[in-house]
């Protein structure tokens, strides 16, 4: 039971692989992914009506307090180029 940071990301489905790669390079070893996320953002609507390549994916993970900044900086170029959301909140991790 630790106080940790809970990070949630939404990126375009086509960017899932590069994002995971960067996360893994940053030492993230545990994460959960929910696919087929639709929504709306700065880059317009993302849907899966035609093909799920144009939908989004949601990634949930945790990190120690203070590590969220560097994770964000590493993903920033992808998020800014292709769109995406990056939120951090506080959580207590019982098992994570």
């Amino acid at each position, binding site marked *: 039971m630790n106080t940790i940071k809970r990070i949630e990301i939404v990126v*375009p489905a*086509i*960017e899932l692989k590069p994002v995971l790669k960067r996360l893994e390079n940053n030492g993230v070893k545990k994460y959960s992914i929910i696919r*087929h996320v639709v929504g709306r953002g700065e*880059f*317009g*609507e993302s849907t*899966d*009506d*035609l*093909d*799920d*390549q*144009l939908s989004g994916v949601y990634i949930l993970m945790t990190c120690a307090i203070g590590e969220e900044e560097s994770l964000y900086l590493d993903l*920033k*170029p*992808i998020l*800014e*180029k*292709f*769109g995406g959301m990056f939120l951090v909140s506080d959580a207590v991790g019982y098992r994570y």
Partner: protein
Amino acid sequence: MEFSLILSNILNPPVLFFFVGMAAIWLKSDLEIPQPLPKMFSLYLLFAIGFKGGHEIIKSGLSWDIGITLLAAIAMACLVPIYSFFILRLKLDIYNAAAIAATYGSISAVTFITASALLTKLELGFGGHMVAALALMESPAIVVGIFLVRLSVDAGEQKPDAVEAVPWTEILREACLNGSVFLLVSSLIIGLLTGENGWGKIKPFSDDLFYGILCFFLLDMGLIAARRINDLKQAGPFVIGFSLLMPVLNAVIGIGLAKLLGMSVGNALLFTVLCASASYIAVPAAMRMSVPEANPSLYISMALALTFPFNIIVGIPIYLQVIQRLWT
């Protein structure tokens, strides 16, 4: 006379189901075909048309004519985006112009399939190699589109890009190996390799169900196209005009080339339809990755909500009418 052909085209179940889809949206019905069913239909259609193409090629054999047709196909797939780009630059920025140009340089497999269904109905034959032409025309426009952006964007005005630009080899690989092209070409080769024996086993699946599944797929396309039309509301007359006139221009060039190369009526129609159609899946997905500055809802909606229905409903029968007149 033209009208009777349009009517005969429209009275095909697949085309009528496209209208049903559009009507469902306009009447606010809650009819829906959830993913991944449309994806399955599309994989099925690529498999079926590829396999049949391979089987037809066995029957007809290879010839010089086929090689020339395939070269013409690649040429058109490279040329269309180039002249489209310069037309589009009259009103649009580099990114959107390039993305739309790529979209129109590529093809719509379902438009091709709908045209081939009309030919089958009218008992007009066509060569299996036209499926190879379809495959060859899917990807070049992606490369041309990216090329146009990189050429146009001056190093100075380009914003410093923290994500390393995708190298050319990677772009080529991705363009040629996107899932649709890959399945289509693989199915064609397997149809070729396994001959009559393979065809006999696969036909009840790939041929007999073809029309029914095409109906469902076009029903879904109707639903999606009608939903996307709203996206074009703020698009303005230039973009709408382009979506409806560009297919006609490309068709005219296609018909001319087909005549020049002495294609049969069936092959000529399919070649024309490849030139006239625009991509709404493979190219948009590639552009979303490689030209993220462009607006996907613009280029997808143009190809899907205007050009696609235009070709399906009036384009195909008119192109066929013109070809039949010119060829006799």
